[in-house]
């Protein structure tokens, strides 16, 4: 196509009007201080089976940015968010590149899909920009695919499995018992099944079978019929996104009585199933009933602004921006390499839990407490949000935070030279 350099007056007017309109939509509602704002890129799926979680992620990161800016910003500079969505891994990688090269963001936050996080990890390593993964769980991201510039505030699959696994062992659902699993058919699910098998084998469980579930499947009835025939002692779900909601509703509908537990979970999906449908024991990285003053403050602020309580994905994106802002303030720089070094030295961060967390230098996983939640019987449910009870923090107060994480033997990470 030949390049048209002649620019008519009309065209110029139209273009600048358009640009002005875009500027109004794109700019956050803050007036800038004299110093230039620090741009932070946020990228997460907004549509598809992970879309419901992406909405929480975006609302939470906006709340965090506004709180930081209301408190004077970072080093006297405002935080400016550049939001984008990532429907699939190809787009995730292209958009990450664009945020870095065109928007010159100081850091990237977000993502929920493990497959997309993997793609972004490769981009940030090449571009040497900090990336904090707020929602992708696959152990491989912290192991075979780990990157020096990628950190994980979201817990890894091993942590999810070990956090809820303790409750399952306590309830006698593992040793000598037959478990049957349903697994989401993409990077996250495959990785979770691998980790789950390792844990269950070590604790004496027998695997009765697994079905891989396509991510766009909405009707679980063929699989529920298979579970009924298999008669397992416990049904384990390695599912993600709206898959979990659909499964829970249909499991209740089919009236199957085998205990249900999951190794991956998000509370929004339990809320979507509703009291009476939601059942079983599940691991979460955080939930809105955690009994700490900072959680209460966050839940109140989020609920006031967005008219619903935050769920665990909201926690991840909220905390990750706070962590990055704090690290920039402490190191007095936005330079990625310096912040990576600061994280690796074991800087501590408040994560709205009882203990502070820190990134483990060997694989960049946030070491922190987790929780196992159990569905309340329908009669005890008072509102649509508080439909579960929680275990105390796992690991317990006298244990190392590393107790539930993958060990170096289980998941080896070697960072390529930066």
């Amino acid at each position, binding site marked *: 196509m030949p390049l048209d350099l002649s620019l008519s007056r009309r065209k110029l007017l139209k273009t600048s009007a358009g640009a002005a309109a875009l500027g109004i939509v794109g700019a956050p509602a803050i007036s800038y201080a004299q110093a230039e704002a620090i741009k932070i890129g946020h990228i997460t799926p907004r549509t598809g089976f992970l879309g419901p979680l992406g909405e929480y992620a975006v609302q939470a990161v906006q709340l965090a940015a506004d709180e930081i800016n209301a408190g004077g910003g970072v080093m006297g500079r405002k935080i400016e968010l550049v939001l984008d969505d990532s429907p699939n891994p190809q787009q995730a990688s292209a958009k990450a590149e664009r945020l870095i090269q065109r928007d010159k963001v100081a850091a990237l936050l977000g993502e929920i899909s493990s497959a997309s996080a993997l793609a972004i990890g490769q981009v940030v390593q090449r571009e040497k920009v900090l990336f904090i993964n707020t929602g992708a769980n696959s152990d491989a991201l912290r192991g075979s695919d780990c990157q020096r510039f990628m950190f994980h505030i979201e817990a890894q699959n091993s942590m999810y499995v070990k956090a809820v696994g303790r409750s399952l062992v306590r309830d006698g659902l593992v040793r000598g018992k037959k478990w049957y699993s349903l697994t989401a058919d993409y990077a996250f699910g495959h990785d979770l099944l691998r980790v789950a098998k390792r844990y269950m084998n070590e604790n004496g469980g027998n695997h009765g079978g697994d*079905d891989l579930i396509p991510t766009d*499947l909405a009707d679980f009835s*063929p*699989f529920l019929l*298979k579970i009924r025939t298999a008669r397992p002692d416990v049904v384990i779900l390695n599912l993600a996104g709206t898959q979990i909601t659909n499964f829970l509703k249909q499991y209740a*509908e089919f*009236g199957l009585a085998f205990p249900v537990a999951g190794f991956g979970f998000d509370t929004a999906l339990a809320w979507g199933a509703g009291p009476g449908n939601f059942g079983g024991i599940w691991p979460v990285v955080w939930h809105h009933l955690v009994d700490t003053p900072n959680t209460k403050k966050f839940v109140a602020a989020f609920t006031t602004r967005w008219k619903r309580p935050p769920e665990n994905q909201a926690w991840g994106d909220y905390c990750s921006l706070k962590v990055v802002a704090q690290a920039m303030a402490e190191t007095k720089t936005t330079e990625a390499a310096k912040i990576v070094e600061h994280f690796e030295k074991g800087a501590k961060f408040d994560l709205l839990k009882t203990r502070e967390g820190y990134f483990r230098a060997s694989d960049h996983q946030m070491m922190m407490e987790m929780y196992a939640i159990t569905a309340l019987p329908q009669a005890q449910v008072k509102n649509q949000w508080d439909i579960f009870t929680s275990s105390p923090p796992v690991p317990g107060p006298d244990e190392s935070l590393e107790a539930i994480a993958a060990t170096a033997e289980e998941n080896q990470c070697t960072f390529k030279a930066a």
Partner: protein
Amino acid sequence: MDFIPLLSQILNGLQNGAYYVMIALGLSMIFSLGGIVNLAHGAFYAIGAYLTVTLAPQIGFGGAMIASPLLVALIGMVVERYLLRRFYTGDPILGLLLTFGLAMVAEQSLRIIYGAAPVPFSIPQALRGQVFIGEFVYSRYRLMILGIAAACVLGLWLLLSRTAFGKVVRAGVQNPDMVGALGISLKPYMTAVVMIGVGLAALAGVLVAPIAGVHPAMGQEIITFAFVVVVIGGLGSFWGVVAAAVIVGVTRGVAAHFYPAATEASVYLLMVLVLLLRPRGLFGERIQKFE
């Protein structure tokens, strides 16, 4: 020994086919008469589900089952009168783009009003429970869906084959110019067909709301299957769509039994096979205006 589980999957496939048919029939009718590939059909299904969640607390699930499809049919009427009507005779790609845009507007509107997270909704207490037929145990609610879908198919077939209305619609599908030459305007018939079509899709949405997640993208999930059903069944064929819906449902069930990872892929494979052997679909008729 291994026969009972397979039989259950086949019966379950029948039930799944039941609700594909409710969506695919409308899609097929709107295409056959108006020549519009209605990509917004799934959106009407989603709106039906959301209306149920909103209305059921006030007027009960039974009330919502009647009110939601009627409200959606009214929306369908407005959409037909002011939008679709302009595109019957033009380039089919324009109608495609219009309905694609409508689907996105509808999905975003649901997202803005209700949020992206699934909205909780459960089966009414009275409809819960299981039915035992020998070795075979099945959900009462799903048997009810099967019954309602069968009634809809029968009703629609009677309407199209036994009434004056049906005669004009069938004639309009075959040769609209001749119908016009006889002094009959197809416009009110087209409005009625769209209303019936989207109303049926909405009813499917109502029925699925208690057993699957109600979220803005649910229409997208179902629309691909509905298209596959229409393509396999053959354009313009009423019983072709019904048969294809059942075949697609059963194929999924059998695939889940033998090779679960291919549950969704099996349906597309089936479509490829059918199109290779019969490009017009299983029961596809020649329709003059598309030749």
